[in-house]
């Protein structure tokens, strides 16, 4: 008996479980993750939910509570806390506010107290939280010797480093070379200088694939020193964006979007007018009144011509109808600029060369915008010195190359063989959040902490000093950058202390604990914002004026222009392993999980390629192969390719060749050389004969003629638009666009006396940036389904941003429309559910009882908006993989995670409604008029979405519903949607305005809607066509393939 007991014990000691148990009981690290269990991309292993049954057997899980022995003050378990912090993404600091649940951050939003966002945020910010819990992040130091990798502890790593640096101490740092990803962190700067003092011979280079080289250069050319520009779009009358995504990718995109949307108020006497001159369709152009698609090489000439025209004081006059679109817009643009001195803004995108930026500065100066609509701020950021690194490395190499963040091997220009350069150093150490392509050629990889795990600081765009406080202790054996640098210096490495030290030096007032705490609490130091400067404009040679942009383009293969775009999902590739972003539809193409060769229908036609055709792109000897996506509005004769795809060492989501996970998309960097980092001419496109279906969430297939005509007929009714004049003539034109019999009910209608939750979406403000989609995903635990399921049109996003192209295929107009559950009062989905799984709350919410749902999917059929989402498969099974468990922590504990076979949809963020209700109840007060914010509303930079209680006349939403522009989508079905849309108002230049037809008695005078039955629809078709500039016959055919 006892014998066997002993033996069994001895056996036990050797079992893996026991070892693991030991490990968990007495761990070195904060946590342990079993690795390498399932190393296939988890998106491919979606399977049965029975697997989950396996986890918990046939009984409920035995739950154990694990509270703290002594409860921390001012924290109530299960009640969320907010922390202000600062996070740097690609060298751009963002003032953020993180929501923390039981000490775990679960959501990121903009810091409402800081102007840069005013509480809004973009998709990158939203998705950053997912990276925090990404098990593919570096978890331990890794040393690779003799072609094989070994997990090391920091102790071993430190021994290596100290030994190295003790040598450098002798050699004054000779042979030591640092290539650091550009950062705006003052502490990092301080430590850098400290290092340089300690090791004078050390070489330090800053590098970022996204560093604003051109705008810096442009400013230096114009003013002799780099400056940053801030715009006041609210009071500007004319805004001209030159190849620039002013409201999107621009560092101050959020701020711009906000002030722009405020300037777009059709009820004010002056409504901002936006001209967009660009190559590929940007989010900004969605909001534009007039857009000209030009190839990037033509744009310099265009702006030069503008300067010329402005200089000449002859009377401007409209170009005639027959002239090319670009000329018509040009005339109007010049006219507008002349009419509004000091009230215009001209901004140039990073893609354009230095002279164009300088020219824009000069124009703004000449037009007297500077100081009014344009503000200049000093730019302290350190210049990009990658080229110097290249020359240095080629010349002498060294004994050690230390890479702080970044991924040069992947994202540096193709003609620079970084990998080979690195070989010139005996030791290559890569210190980064993710092990990536660069780490692969280093002999040491050291894990860097996620920004939410460590103390740090940063300088915001407007020069404000921001502090980053950690939301959670590091999940892995990682260190923050400043701790690491301090370690190299041999100083004590308490992050908090390091940051405070900097703060003390920079701002004496922060020596006081109270002041310091104030800054930590606010997330930034209010008084540190940079003061505007008025530098002297230098004399310089602007780009040569040419009329080349005027003549229509001939598509000649081999002479095409290729444009490299930073992607709205993966940016420059750093978000490649972020599933939320990978599955986020591109605002215009609606493409997910890949990049493509984007070209206009005319171009595609000339090249004889169709959607999904895989083509070979050849640019001076280098070539890549990727599928075609035909996109109206891409400048004719140009091909846009997004960078940041084709990562080979991103992780199990973005691709990891070592683990046999194929890369997502194709790496466009292969044809992107130092000479032409942004665009290049001389591209040759040749079909390979292969086809590859792109995962697109809208227009899932090349649409046929019948459908296309129908869409053109319908768009006008769905996304209702009018010109400013039309609006002023008869404000409620939107209401009258669709005619229907009186909407009467057979029954006595239900009345909602208490709260009546409702939403309003202002199409005039929405720029289709998609942030709301990710915000919703993060707030409501929306699953990721992967490319195959997207192809099968089973994406799960609760919120979709529809976009419709109208008009000419080469110069189209686009209409965007965020659509989510409309919470109809007469919800068609409810009556057809046999088990009453979806019913109406007495506050007008269309509730979905997941636990009652058996998945007949009848509600989905009967939903006219098709906003219901069904879990066709178990889209969560990836989380069961042991090495993925960590990802569960990103889930919002206040929202049920839906299982397979269950229908789900937007809930108006009911959990937020309830939380606010509880707070109000505890404080014995009514819920404030605009107290509740839905996730999509909170994130929206242009304030397009408002939510609240329709029964409260104080609330914004009640006001919006009362607005003249308000209309219900498909209201003619008498479903009584609780979400209303505010019609979009375009503000075209009078010369380019479509003829306002005396819209069949729209005046609203006397004639009720029921007055006309049939002919109304005929009219709709009619004015739907008119409201978008109708097209000449020849392009009709082209138009039909697309849209």
């Amino acid at each position, binding site marked *: 008996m006892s014998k066997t007991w002993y033996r069994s014990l001895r056996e036990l000691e050797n079992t893996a479980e026991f070892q693991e148990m030991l490990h968990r009981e007495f761990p070195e690290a904060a946590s342990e993750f079993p690795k390498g269990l399932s190393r296939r991309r988890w998106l491919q292993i979606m*399977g*049965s*939910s*029975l697997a989950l049954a396996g986890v918990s057997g046939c009984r409920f899980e035995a739950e154990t509570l694990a509270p703290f022995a002594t409860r921390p003050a001012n924290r109530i378990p299960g009640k969320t806390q907010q922390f202000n912090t600062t996070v740097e993404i690609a060298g751009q600091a963002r003032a953020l506010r993180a929501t923390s649940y039981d000490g775990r951050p679960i959501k990121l939003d903009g810091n409402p107290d800081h102007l840069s966002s005013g509480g809004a945020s973009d998709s990158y910010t939203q998705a950053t939280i997912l990276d925090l819990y990404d098990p593919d992040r570096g978890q331990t130091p890794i040393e690779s010797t003799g072609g094989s990798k070994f997990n090391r502890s920091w102790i071993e790593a430190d021994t290596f480093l100290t030994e190295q640096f003790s040598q450098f101490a002798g050699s004054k740092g000779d042979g030591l070379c640092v290539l650091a990803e550009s950062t705006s962190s003052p502490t990092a700067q301080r430590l850098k200088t400290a290092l340089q003092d300690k090791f004078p011979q050390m070489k330090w280079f800053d590098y970022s694939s996204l560093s604003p080289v051109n705008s810096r250069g442009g400013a230096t050319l114009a003013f002799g020193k780099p400056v940053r520009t801030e715009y006041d779009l609210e009071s500007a009358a004319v805004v001209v964006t030159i190849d620039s995504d002013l409201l999107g990718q621009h560092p101050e995109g959020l701020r711009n979007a906000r002030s722009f949307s405020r300037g777009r108020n059709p009820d004010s006497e002056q409504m901002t007018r936006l001209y967009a001159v660009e190559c590929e369709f940007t989010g900004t152009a969605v909001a534009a009144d007039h857009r000209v698609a030009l190839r990037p090489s033509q744009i310099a000439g265009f702006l030069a011509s503008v300067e010329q025209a402005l200089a000449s004081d002859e009377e401007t006059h409209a170009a005639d109808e027959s002239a090319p679109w670009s000329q018509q817009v040009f005339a109007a643009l010049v006219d507008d600029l002349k009419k509004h001195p000091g009230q215009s803004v001209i901004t140039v995108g990073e893609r354009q060369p230095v002279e164009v930026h300088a020219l824009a500065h000069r124009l703004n100066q000449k037009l007297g915008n500077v100081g009014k609509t344009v503000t200049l701020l000093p730019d302290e950021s350190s210049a990009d010195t990658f080229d110097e690194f290249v020359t240095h490395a080629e010349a002498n190499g060294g004994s050690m190359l230390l890479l702080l963040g970044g991924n040069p091997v992947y994202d540096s220009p193709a003609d620079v063989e970084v990998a080979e350069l690195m070989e010139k150093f005996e030791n290559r150490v890569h210190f980064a959040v993710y092990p990536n392509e660069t780490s692969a050629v280093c002999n040491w990889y050291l894990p860097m902490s996620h920004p939410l795990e460590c103390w740090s600081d940063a300088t915001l765009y407007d020069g404000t000093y921001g502090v980053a406080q950690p939301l959670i202790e590091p999940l892995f054996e990682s260190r923050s950058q400043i701790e690491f640098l301090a370690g190299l210096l041999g100083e004590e490495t308490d992050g908090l202390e390091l940051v405070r030290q900097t703060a003390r030096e920079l701002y004496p007032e922060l020596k006081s604990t109270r002041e310091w705490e104030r800054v930590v609490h606010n997330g930034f130091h209010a008084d540190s914002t940079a003061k505007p400067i008025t530098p002297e404009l230098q004399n310089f040679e602007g780009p040569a004026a040419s009329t080349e942009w005027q003549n229509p383009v001939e598509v000649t293969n081999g002479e095409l222009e290729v444009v490299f775009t930073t992607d709205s999902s993966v940016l420059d590739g750093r978000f490649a392993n972020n599933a939320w972003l990978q599955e986020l539809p591109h605002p215009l193409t609606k493409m997910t999980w890949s990049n493509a060769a984007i070209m206009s229908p005319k171009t595609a036609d000339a090249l004889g390629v169709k959607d999904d055709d895989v083509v070979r792109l050849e640019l001076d000897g280098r070539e890549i192969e990727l599928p075609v996506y035909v996109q109206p509005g891409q400048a004719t004769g140009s091909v846009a390719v997004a960078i940041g795809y084709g990562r080979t060492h991103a992780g199990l989501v973005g691709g990891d060749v070592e683990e046999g996970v194929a890369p997502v998309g194709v790496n466009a960097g292969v044809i992107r050389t130092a000479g032409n980092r942004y665009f290049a001419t001389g591209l040759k496109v040749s079909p390979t004969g292969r086809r590859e279906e792109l995962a697109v969430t*809208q*227009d*899932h*297939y090349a*649409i*046929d003629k*019948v*459908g296309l005509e*129908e*869409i053109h*007929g*319908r768009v006008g009714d769905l996304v209702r638009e009018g010109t400013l004049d039309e609006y002023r003539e008869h404000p409620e034109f939107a209401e009258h666009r669709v005619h229907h019999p009186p909407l009467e009910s057979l029954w006595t209608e239900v009345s909602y006396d208490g709260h009546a939750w409702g939403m309003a979406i202002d199409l005039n403000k929405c720029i289709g940036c998609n942030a709301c989609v990710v915000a919703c995903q993060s707030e409501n635990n929306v699953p990721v389904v992967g490319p195959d399921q997207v192809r*099968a*049109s*089973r*994406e799960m996003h609760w919120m*979709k941003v*529809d*976009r*419709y192209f109208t008009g000419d295929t080469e110069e189209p107009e686009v209409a965007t*429309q965020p*659509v989510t559950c409309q919470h109809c009062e007469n919800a*068609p989905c409810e*009556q*057809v*559910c*046999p*088990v*009453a799984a979806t019913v109406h709350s007495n506050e007008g919410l269309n509730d979905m009882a997941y*636990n*009652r749902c*058996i*998945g*007949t*999917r*009848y509600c*989905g*059929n*009967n939903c*006219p*908006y*098709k906003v219901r989402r*069904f*879990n*066709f*498969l*178990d889209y969560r099974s990836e989380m069961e993989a042991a090495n993925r468990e960590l990802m569960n922590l990103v889930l919002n504990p206040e929202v049920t995670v839906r299982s*397979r*076979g*269950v*229908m789900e949809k937007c809930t108006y963020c009911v959990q937020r409604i309830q939380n606010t209700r509880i707070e109000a109840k505890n404080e014995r007060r009514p819920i404030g008029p605009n107290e509740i914010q839905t996730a999509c509303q909170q994130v929206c930079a242009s304030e397009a979405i408002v939510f609240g209680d329709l029964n409260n006349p104080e609330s914004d939403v009640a006001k919006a519903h009362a607005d003249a522009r308000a209309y219900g989508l498909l209201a003619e*079905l008498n479903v009584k949607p609780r979400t209303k849309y505010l019609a979009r108002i375009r503000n075209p230049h009078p010369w380019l305005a479509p003829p306002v037809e005396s819209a069949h008695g729209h005046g609203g005078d006397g004639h009720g809607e029921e007055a006309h*039955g*049939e002919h109304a*629809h005929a009219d*709709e078709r009619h004015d739907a066509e008119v409201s978008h500039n109708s097209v000449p016959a020849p392009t009709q055919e082209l138009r039909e393939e697309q849209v």
Partner: protein
Amino acid sequence: MATALAAPVDTTIEDPTRRPPLVTGDHDYQSITDTIHSISEHKTPRAWYIAFAVSSTATVTFFLLIGYLIYQGVGVWGNNNPVFWGWPIVNFVFWVGIGHAGTLISAILFLFRQNWRTSVNRFAEAMTIFAVVCAGIFPGIHVGRVWFAYWLAPYPATRLDMWPNFRSPLLWDVFAVSTYATVSLLFWYMGMIPDLATFRDRSKSKIKQFVYGVFALGWNGSARHWHRYEKAYMLLAALATPLVLSVHTVVSFDFAVAQLPGWHATIFPPYFVAGAVFSGFAMVITLMVPARKWFGLKDLVTLRHLENMCKVILATGSMVGFAYAIEFFIAWYGGNPYEGFAFINRAFGPYAWAYWTMVSCNVIAPQFFWIKKVRTTPWMMFIICIFVNIGMWFERFVITVTSLSRDFLPSSWAYFKPTPIDMAMFACSFGLFFTLFLLFCRYLPIVAMAEVKSVMPVPESEAKNDTKA
């Protein structure tokens, strides 16, 4: 032996003054019993074994596929958003439709005193029941969480003591189909009792005697029993008649009550019922033509029977064609742009191929039945009926999928692609159908002997037969 009717007669004469016999050939009561009973009594033919092997394999595959489906989730089908209902529902409606001929023949024709029904009704009823079995399976496995499908029953479920929502057409459907299945089964079994008794009394083996005996419930042909039996049969027929019409009406509500363009139409109930009878009779003929050949039932199931059924097909087929036309007219006349587009899209959109297949099979094919030659030539009617069966499946496909794939918001339009699982499941559901059918042919009276005897012409000189003994 009686020879009165030995000479072959043309049973398909159109002269109303002369009534052709319902049973031809040299037959008396005895021989009818022999003909039918011999099918189950004699040694099983090899052909049966082969057919059974094939169909039962398919059946097993069918259930394996269902297992896989439940394990993986409905994602194994092609269903997507917006086409939340794909092939499974199409198959369901298809099978339910087929399951209409039987009860219609036994009930409605019975009430109309159509004596010719006697020799085909048993057969048709059996087909009905087996079709309904196949039909019942699809909606069952179609739901996302099969294991909770029982919440459809009016029973206080989910710890909330919640009841189902009686406003939902889908719930009406549950009641309609289950009722229909039950009543059809009753009807079929009741009609079979006297014949089971015959089998009981004729069987040699003890086991058969016992089994048939149990199911014959001790029937002994007493006049008093016959009296109540006929009354009950009449009542069941009277009940089943509205039921038959109601079932597909309710099924059509699943679509008609919804708001979807292309579904939301008041014409659906009559149109669906006509279609159901149409497909049902087509299936009867498809099965009957070979069956009467193999089982030597030519004398009982005469050309006249087949011809009558062809006439029904012709009539209902034309109704269906008319319904198609009316749909378009209403779509245009109603002036609802969404409705209008739904039909333009059907005829000229990406699913035009399906639509035209449907039209040619359902509207054009049956028109050949105007020709008497076609009506009276088994192989011809067989081919046409095959077409009708195909066409009717496509009808359901067109209604379900094309309407869903393009509804109100163009942004949510999508094309539906069936997966191999979809196809395999549909194919294998036929396996189940034929398995049941083969078992029926082998072990049960496939013709209502008692009823046939009651309508067969009585040989004059039959008294003699029995004087010996």
